[in-house]
């Protein structure tokens, strides 16, 4: 149960960013959401986030003007569900957003930049691969819990190949063109979503970033399956997690800055992108989509 203690550690402060992604590809708070900026704007509520005129593709508008001069809305976009999440804790969440934002810019980013200058990128990618391989139990168990046996087999194969022929996981031969076993990005929050449990409302945790009651429970479940949570003494596990996140951030510097720079209200953009991102992940394997997650935005 030692892993319950690590969230309180200052080091984990910059060690934890995404409450849901055991994938080392996910970095701290800001970059918790991986969809590209453009995708964020598309899924955002147009009332809350007016489009940035500077970024509006003029050509695309003229291209969609019909013979009568009316602007045609592409069918795909008009039919696309724009999920929204309740945000009753918005004042708190906004405060935590600013807290995490400062944490990123004042602590995590400088540390990661310094680390990136000292350690070659190839080595950092190797470390990232190693931690991704270490997180195999999370992906494997959650594939099984979602009855995704094909995914579970792929994960088992990946773990075996990368551990044995990937020098303990530092290399990723399983993703090569020849073997082509792709990583199953599953976590306990997604499993709960696949079981039909809705997101609930939006929570922006300090240190852990965007989440929801469902995904917060998922985070605890994932904690049990994270091998280094069981390291003793407790600060060994926390330090390992911290190092993982610094390493990961060093490979993704600029992602959050792009997301933030492109949004009128970064808080809303991140919130909406988070909801969309999680919904997409839950739906990917054909899991049930809770009705409340598909609620259309209010006009």
């Amino acid at each position: 149960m030692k892993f319950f203690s690590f969230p309180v550690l200052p080091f984990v402060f910059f060690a934890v960013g995404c409450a849901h992604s055991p994938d080392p590809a996910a970095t701290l708070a800001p970059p918790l959401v991986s969809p590209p900026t453009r995708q964020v704007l598309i899924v955002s509520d147009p009332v809350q986030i007016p489009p940035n005129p500077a970024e509006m593709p003029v050509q695309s508008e003229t291209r969609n003007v019909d013979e009568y001069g009316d602007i045609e809305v592409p069918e795909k976009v008009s039919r696309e569900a724009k999920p929204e999440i309740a945000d009753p804790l918005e004042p708190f969440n906004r405060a935590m957003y600013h807290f995490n934002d400062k944490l990123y810019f004042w602590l995590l980013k400088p540390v990661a930049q310094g680390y990136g200058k000292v350690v070659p990128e190839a080595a950092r990618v190797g470390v990232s691969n190693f931690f991704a391989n270490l997180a195999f139990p999370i992906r494997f168990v959650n594939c099984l819990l979602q009855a995704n046996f094909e995914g579970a087999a792929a994960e088992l194969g990946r773990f075996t190949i990368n551990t044995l022929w990937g020098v303990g996981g530092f290399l990723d031969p399983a993703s090569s063109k020849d073997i082509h076993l792709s990583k199953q990005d599953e976590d306990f929050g997604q499993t709960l979503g696949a079981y039909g449990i809705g997101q609930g409302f939006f929570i922006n945790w300090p240190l852990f970033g965007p989440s929801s009651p469902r995904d917060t429970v998922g985070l605890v479940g994932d904690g049990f399956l994270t091998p280094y949570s069981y390291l003793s003494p407790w600060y060994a596990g926390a330090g390992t997690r911290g190092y993982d996140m610094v390493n990961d951030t060093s490979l993704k510097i600029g992602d959050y800055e792009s997301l933030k720079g492109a949004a009128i209200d970064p808080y809303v953009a991140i919130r909406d992108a988070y909801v969309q991102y999680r919904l997409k992940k839950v739906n990917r394997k054909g899991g049930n989509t809770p009705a409340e997650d598909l609620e259309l935005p209010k006009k």
Partner: protein
Amino acid sequence: MKSLKAIVIILFVILMAPGRAAAGGPFGSPQPVGKEAGGIHTGIGYWFHEDNYKNGTERVTRQNQVYSELGYGSRKGWEITVRVGMSDLKLIDAFSSTASTATSKTDFEEHGKFFSTLGAKGFYPFNQTFGMGAFIQGSYYFSDFTDNLSGTQSGAPFSVEVRVKNLWDVNFGMGFQATVPYGIKIYIGPYVHYSELKVSPSKDVVGAAFASGETTMKNKNVFGGFTGIEVPLAKGFRLNLEGQYTERLSAGAAVLYVY
């Protein structure tokens, strides 16, 4: 053809010459495992190894090694390889009883000690099919093997811890290779082997083998021969089987992955 005949005769004489020692781990095909353009390979393997050591008396050692390897080869035909693995060690008849000393067991035995191997090789192709190469490879065991021995010496009971330490070996040799259809590589060659270990008891037991002061043992013979085959498998994997013929046979298999 004459030169080929001469090579075959030389190899036959070398390999059939009496008194050879085995080495630690396979040498692999003379040609680098990696792609022709260069690159890395990884692998896992198992190696069964026997050797004869001597220092006054002769003792046979037996080891089972499992290892993981990482190699980098250049397109110019050279390659370096690092292996890390675990091995057991059995020193057969190390504690045999004498007239005045009775022991509880005869063999020294311990499991699971880390070792590392570093190797380098270069390859020169004659044509698309034949080629030859040279290699050097050495292993070192990071920790000591220990075993406890008890018994009676002239009626008095004793108990002693025996330690085998500083086990290392170095090998160098040359290999001749033929690449046959389906990309299968067959290779054979001679090599020179030197290995050494120290046996040290925690206290002296007069009359008991290896329980009287520190003893340095070296491999009995330095010349050996090896042969092997490397078969391409599916999806970038390769199977390597190799045997090293001596008074005793050492052999193993490895599955390699080429990036």
